[in-house]
């Protein structure tokens, strides 16, 4: 087995171990509740019958490790139990919501990735120019601004003032694709603004990093044209950092999505999570957190593995 395969396998093993630890944390965090879990969840005013029903539903008479094994086993095969708030099957709700969230995130990624990479490379090339400074001010403003501020400015201007787009993203499965796209435009733009700023900054930094290496200086001293240096010499070595930037920012989309979904009442996984947290609907919160955390860990893992595969130096060592 060569060293690349070994490296990749190692990362995979670490990723799986992390997922297991996260599942332990998500499950046993609930055990930290002082006193009787059912009592605490239902509050002081709960009737004894309600409490005993809940105890039975959560299998609180069994030892915790047994419940964990059942819970994780169920989660893996897609059985997440029932919601405490409305008794509905969690898996069914989550699948539908997850689809909506992926639709929104994919839409935002589709716009932001090309823009951010383009702007990031251009600002690195024209470093110190007015264009670079303007772009940097935009980045600073965008990452310092709460997502909900951007969301409501867009709602106020584009939805209410000019009536171009609906302010509330009323999405359901029966909608034709274009209509769905149209209703998702505003949340997607909000997410795009935030993610583009982060991604652009990281792209610029990694290109500048490469431009300061000795071999680029050598190319400059040889008298090569600027565009040739960038396209032929710098860019071919930039793929590793750029892939990393893109994947890491997709992971960033995950947390951005929660706030944007609440601002636009977009029926995604983030809105479900926030609703369930305020209702203290523990099984739903646990499932949502597991999915978010798993996506985040997998994306980071993907970034790691891709950069191992794309790094020519790692391949030579093999």
């Amino acid at each position, binding site marked *: 087995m060569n060293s690349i395969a070994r490296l990749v396998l190692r990362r995979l093993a670490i990723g799986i171990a*992390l997922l297991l*630890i*996260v599942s332990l*944390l*998500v499950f046993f*965090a*609930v055990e*930290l*509740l002082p006193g009787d879990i059912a009592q605490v969840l239902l509050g002081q005013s709960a009737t004894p019958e309600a409490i005993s029903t809940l105890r039975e539903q959560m299998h609180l008479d069994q030892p915790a490790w047994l419940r964990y094994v059942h819970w994780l086993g169920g989660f893996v095969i897609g059985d997440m139990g029932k919601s405490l708030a409305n008794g509905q099957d969690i898996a069914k709700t989550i699948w539908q919501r997850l689809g909506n969230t992926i639709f929104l995130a994919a839409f935002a990624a589709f716009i932001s990735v090309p823009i951010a990479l383009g702007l990031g490379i251009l600002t690195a090339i024209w470093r110190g120019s007015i264009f670079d400074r303007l772009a940097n001010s935009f980045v*600073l*403003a965008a*990452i*310092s*601004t*709460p*997502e*909900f*501020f951007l969301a*409501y*400015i867009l*709602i*106020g201007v584009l939805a*209410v*003032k000019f009536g171009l787009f609906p*302010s509330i993203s009323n999405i359901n499965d029966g909608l034709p694709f274009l209509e769905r796209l149209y209703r998702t435009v505003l949340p997607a733009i909000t997410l795009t603004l935030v993610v583009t700023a982060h991604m652009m900054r990281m792209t610029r930094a990694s290109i500048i990093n490469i431009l300061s290496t000795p071999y680029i200086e050598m190319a400059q001293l040889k008298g090569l044209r600027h565009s040739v240096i960038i396209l032929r010499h710098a860019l071919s070595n930039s793929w590793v950092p750029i892939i990393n930037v893109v994947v890491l920012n997709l*992971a960033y989309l*995950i*947390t951005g999505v*929660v*706030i944007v979904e*609440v*601002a636009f009442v977009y029926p995604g996984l983030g809105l479900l*999570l*926030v609703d*369930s*947290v*305020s209702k*203290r609907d*523990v099984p739903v*919160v*646990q499932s949502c*957190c597991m999915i*978010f*955390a798993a996506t*985040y*860990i997998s994306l*980071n893992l993907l970034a790691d593995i891709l950069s191992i595969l794309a790094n020519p130096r790692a391949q030579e060592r093999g």
Partner: protein
Amino acid sequence: MTSQSRNKRYVPWRIRIAVSVIAVYVLVALFAPLLAPYGQTEIVGRQFMGWSSHYLLGTDNLGRDVASRLIWGARNSVGIALVTTLLTFFIGVVFGLLAAALGGWIDYILSRIVDVIMAIPSLIASLMMLTIFGTSVLTLVLVIAVLESTRVFRLARAVALGVVVQDYFIVAKMRKEPALYLIREEILPNVLPPLAVEFGLRFCFVFLFISALSFLGLGLQPPLADWGSMVRENAMMISFLIFTPLIPAAAIAVLTIAINSVMDWVLDRSRQSRL
């Protein structure tokens, strides 16, 4: 590079403005009771009244004075973010320096714990913790401080690792100085500058984070005046083209932009002076 920017005492206008903005926020937070015309929970009139000389920015969804709540909000939102950041730094720096100074299995275990916490998105982790422990100010501060201290830990440890290989540190260690002495006298003075910049950036992050949680209805709880919750409570006004609910959001943005610009400038300057 112009001769102006070489001058050590030269401070660009952009930065002077940013510093004054930060100063205004601090003053408003300190003197909120004197500046605010009404109390933060006081109901002074009808709901959603327009701007007038009595109620400068009108009233909110319960008939409370928006201008007064904005001023009280400076104290609550900025104050709690500041306390949280201080706690974040305390935890992160103490453990980070301990890990670097002692090394060995303590370093190994602390670093692995941090790896695990950082593998979970912090918004998701804090939502999970807030479900379990409820949404009081104390749990909010503790949960965010613990989650964020991981980043401070990594920085403090990394910077301190540069110190522990220096001769003077090795000598002090051979003198069998206690760990606390090593940290306080040998490491801390040498790692303060990078940590100071990190403090500003971390504060912005914590501030935005708490505001986001408040906006989600899971941060500071009503009736406390807080900028994030104020946006949430009055967001519906935007459908009538009344932009008052955006003022607290703008207040958040302006403060973080000001701090970030100052920190960017400080970082830039320290980089230049090293060249």
